[in-house]
């Protein structure tokens, strides 16, 4: 199932060099541990820079949205087999 969402989440990240790697994602009472970062892509909204992280664990795909302007994380897509 593929859900399009726009939910605030709490994210623990690793900083590796100049990169940010989402590690633990807390969505309500559900917790996801990142196994793979499959794609990171930026998007400009005017001068504001947004980063999208396409990540997965053993049974879920998540697309996270990080707004660099207000430092806010959101879960925007959730896919399960």
């Amino acid at each position: 199932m593929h859900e399009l969402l726009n939910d605030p989440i709490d994210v623990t990240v690793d900083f590796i060099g100049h990169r940010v790697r989402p590690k633990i994602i807390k969505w309500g009472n559900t917790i996801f541990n990142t196994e793979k970062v499959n794609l990171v892509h930026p998007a400009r909204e005017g001068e504001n820079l947004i980063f999208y992280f396409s990540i997965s664990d053993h049974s879920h795909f998540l697309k996270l949205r990080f707004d660099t302007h207000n430092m806010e994380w959101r879960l925007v897509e959730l896919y399960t087999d």
Partner: protein
Amino acid sequence: MSIILHLDFNSFFASVEQQANPFLRNKAIAVGGKSGGAGTGSTGGRAPLLARTVVTTASREAKALGIKTAMGSMEAMRILPSLIMIQGDPQKYSEITKRFLNIMRRYSDAVEQFSTDEAFADITQAAGDYFGATALALQIKEDIARECGPYCTVSIGIAPNKLIAKLAGESRKPDGLTVVPPADVINFIDSQPFSAFCGIGSKTEEKLTELGISDVKSLRRAPLSLLRSHFKNQGDWLYLAARGAGDDQVSDKVEDPKSIGHSYTFPYDLELEAELKTNLLALSDKVAFRMRRDNFYATQVSAFVRHARFPGVAGPSSAGAGVGAQHKIKDGISDGLEIYKNAWEIINKIRDKEMPIRLLGVSVSGLIKSPLPSRLFKKDQKTHRALEALDEIQNKFGSDSWRRAATLKTVFLERASGWHYDHEI
């Protein structure tokens, strides 16, 4: 003699989706979208419907099971009920486009983008010879796997000109590498059907067949005078193509667009005049923002609608015919409100007022690239200043930061129905 490289992604949008989401890999998926559709629109909180989308790209697994580009999603689901339909996510594709163009520019100063997933590069200098060209192509493939992701594979063709390079690249999919040095060109093109040539459409092929010309070999025997008399200028091109000759100029100049437009296919039918106007204004503002950003004025406004044939019935069977019309404007305009006024006049005239509307579109053409003409500048100085201020805000905070009060209700959902590839703003 030049060495030209042509690069083309395999099942581009679908591969990027499979790269991002491992649960889509090795599965028949299709990326849905609207050909030439969309920008913004009022979705009223309702979920976007897949019913009105077409297949823009099928994964290689889906292609093998009969799913084709431009197929309606309903038809595709009927052919393959297990097909996974994914709504397009243009920002993701655009990022991969940027990355592969950057990779190609490492190896060549002349890179010509041919489409979102296709480009030519003149690699004469970097490669030296065809052996070097092969090594370079493998290097590019490696860079793409590393920087775009291993699920994004490309087919590469290398030849003395763009025509043969593209033909070569497309002869082996997926993940192909086909090198056709000058000495092999004739043998190679003789093995290709007319339909594989970029530049020989079905009409040309039909005409050739009528003249008794059924393959490249027989085309080469046809005298130039015969080809000219039947195909005019294209006759010269055909004469050269049959000899493996073609354009080897790779130009990295970006041409000015001939028109700027936005359209939107609504996830539900619009019945209220107020709703139509609101969405038309939102589309006009989007067009206007792009025009001002790129410094264009328009002397023509076009608008079009598509009615839902049977009110309340969803699905392709209810798709009505589209109607559109144009307005010429004496003075150049770049203001969304002006565009909207012209577009609304057109739409109100051509629409069937009894029918709900499924698709709305606005475009401007007759584009002039220049600063505002002084005569206009004086007359509209106030508006112009206001617009500049608004653009500044928009540039700073993105296209959602200001909206005319009337369009405040418009919501732009992620992967909303009717996405359009152009999402720069």
